[in-house]
């Protein structure tokens, strides 16, 4: 079964626009994906017809909105193969990781260890650095091999009796590497450590089956999954969440409050202090519902075909250096161009209507690992076409000419 992007492109109004006189070729999907009408309309419709705060009203709009918000939780739970009470809505992937680090950190002591990898996004590094600064927690980084794959043996060697958490990405936002999260989880559990998987890319381009992975936590963000910004998800195993203290305090997360004492609600509410991003959660639900009509494997095969087409058109050029060639990797193409800065290339590509990312991709340790100060990244999504992969490759060849 193959996937035809042309049949769905008109559901993404933004894809019809022109940029600098050229048709938009949007290849910055790993940073944020565009939204289909199904998402835009669900959010607009919600605000136009039935909106109120959730969980506390005794009127019709409050009940309708609460139902829709909780239905979105159910949709997310099903998407991850989890129970609905294991789904905490956050403002994004970053907040979800901060929540876990902040809450688990309460029980950590000096000398406890957190194992990360060199390919983590800053959002899965800095929250742990905060624990290092506040608690004296020791951070250990598993190495990344030359082809961009995780040095699993090295990671295993870092595990020990003081390892409290292993936090790693499901899929690298730069290399496209898909990590063996299941094997890592097993090994981490064997030493009694909890496992957090950063699924910001993996929830879109890999298989976010939390039961199969076995991880304690899986986080992702809505806006890379064709949903809105301002909404993220923390999946936490029921027993893991139940044992965790609240991270932020406020309304909605309490059972009772008195002058001298507070008791907290059960998860997931315990971790949703204050008014949540209601419309955004509903928009995320709409995005996942919309995606459900497609065969997941066919979509991934299509994205891979785009990546391979672009690579085929450029590879072999002696000025092109790809970063990240791990077997089975996802459709992210990071590279440098000899004689031209990534920044320059991206700026000229934009003139041809091609949107890519250039820089360190919020992954400074990884850039250092590959000894580059910045790289260009083209990342593909289901609505991209083979013609766009060609247009990107052609524009890249032209862009380079300015600088040599």
């Amino acid at each position: 079964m193959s996937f035809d992007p042309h049949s769905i492109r008109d559901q993404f109004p933004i894809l019809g626009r022109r940029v600098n006189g050229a048709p938009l070729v949007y290849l910055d999907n790993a940073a944020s994906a565009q939204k289909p009408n199904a998402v835009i309309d669900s959010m607009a419709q919600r605000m136009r017809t039935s909106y109120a705060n959730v969980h506390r009203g005794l009127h019709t709009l409050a009940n309708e909105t609460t139902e829709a918000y909780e239905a979105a939780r159910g949709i997310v739970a099903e998407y991850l193969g989890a129970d609905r009470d294991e789904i905490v809505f956050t403002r994004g992937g970053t907040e979800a990781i901060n929540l876990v680090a902040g809450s688990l950190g309460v029980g950590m002591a000096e000398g406890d260890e957190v194992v990360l990898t060199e390919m983590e996004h800053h959002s899965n590094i800095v929250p742990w650095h905060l624990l290092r600064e506040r608690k004296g927690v020791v951070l250990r980084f598993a190495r990344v091999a030359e082809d961009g794959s995780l040095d699993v043996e090295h990671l295993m060697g870092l595990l020990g009796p003081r390892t409290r958490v292993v936090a790693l990405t499901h899929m690298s936002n730069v290399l496209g590497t898909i990590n063996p999260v299941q094997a890592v989880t097993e090994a981490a559990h064997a030493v009694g450590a909890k496992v957090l998987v950063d699924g910001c890319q993996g929830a879109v381009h890999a298989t976010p089956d939390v039961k199969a992975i076995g991880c304690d936590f899986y986080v992702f963000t809505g806006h890379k999954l064709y949903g809105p910004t301002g909404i993220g998800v923390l999946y936490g195993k029921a027993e893991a969440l139940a044992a965790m203290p609240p991270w932020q305090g406020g309304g909605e997360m309490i059972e009772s409050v008195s002058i001298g004492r507070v008791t907290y609600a059960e998860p997931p509410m315990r971790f949703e202090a204050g008014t949540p991003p209601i419309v955004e959660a509903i928009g995320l639900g709409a995005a996942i519902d919309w995606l459900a009509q497609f065969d997941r494997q066919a979509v991934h095969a299509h994205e891979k075909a785009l990546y391979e087409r672009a690579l085929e058109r450029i590879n072999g050029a002696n000025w092109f250096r790809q970063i990240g060639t791990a077997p089975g990797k996802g459709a992210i193409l990071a590279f440098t161009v000899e004689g031209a800065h990534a920044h320059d290339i991206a700026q000229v590509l934009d003139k041809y209507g091609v949107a890519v990312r250039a820089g360190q991709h919020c992954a400074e340790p990884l850039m250092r690992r590959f000894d580059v100060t910045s790289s260009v990244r083209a990342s593909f999504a289901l609505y991209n076409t083979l013609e766009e992969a060609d247009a990107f490759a052609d524009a890249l060849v032209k862009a380079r000419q300015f600088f040599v």
Partner: protein
Amino acid sequence: MTTIAEELDALAEDFDLLDDWESQLEYVIDLGRALPRLEESERSDANRVRGCSSQVWVVSERADDGRLAFRAESDAQIPQGLIAVLLKLYSGRRPEEIRALDPQTAVDRLKLGSMLTSQRANGLAAMVERIRREAAA
């Protein structure tokens, strides 16, 4: 020496001759290539203004008459060209002259807006900030 206003006029005249973005880009890149490079030791952390994807180093010297001289360099070519433009305008001026020229005015006049869309990313905004701070001191 020409005044800032005269220099801006001269630059605007040059830029007006360029009728498409390709030739404008080539011209900017050429200006950057003609710019003298900094010494290795001057590309130090202390002289670096941080951008996200590319970097800029700025060195300033104050002459006895109070004029401020700037030299700068980027590791990317488009910012390097834009630096060349900025230095033509700002380097060797008295602080009050520097303070009097709003960088946005120059950008608009030279129609460099499209090249400066990612100012924060390329460190140029930080460089202008640095120049104006020196002039305020």
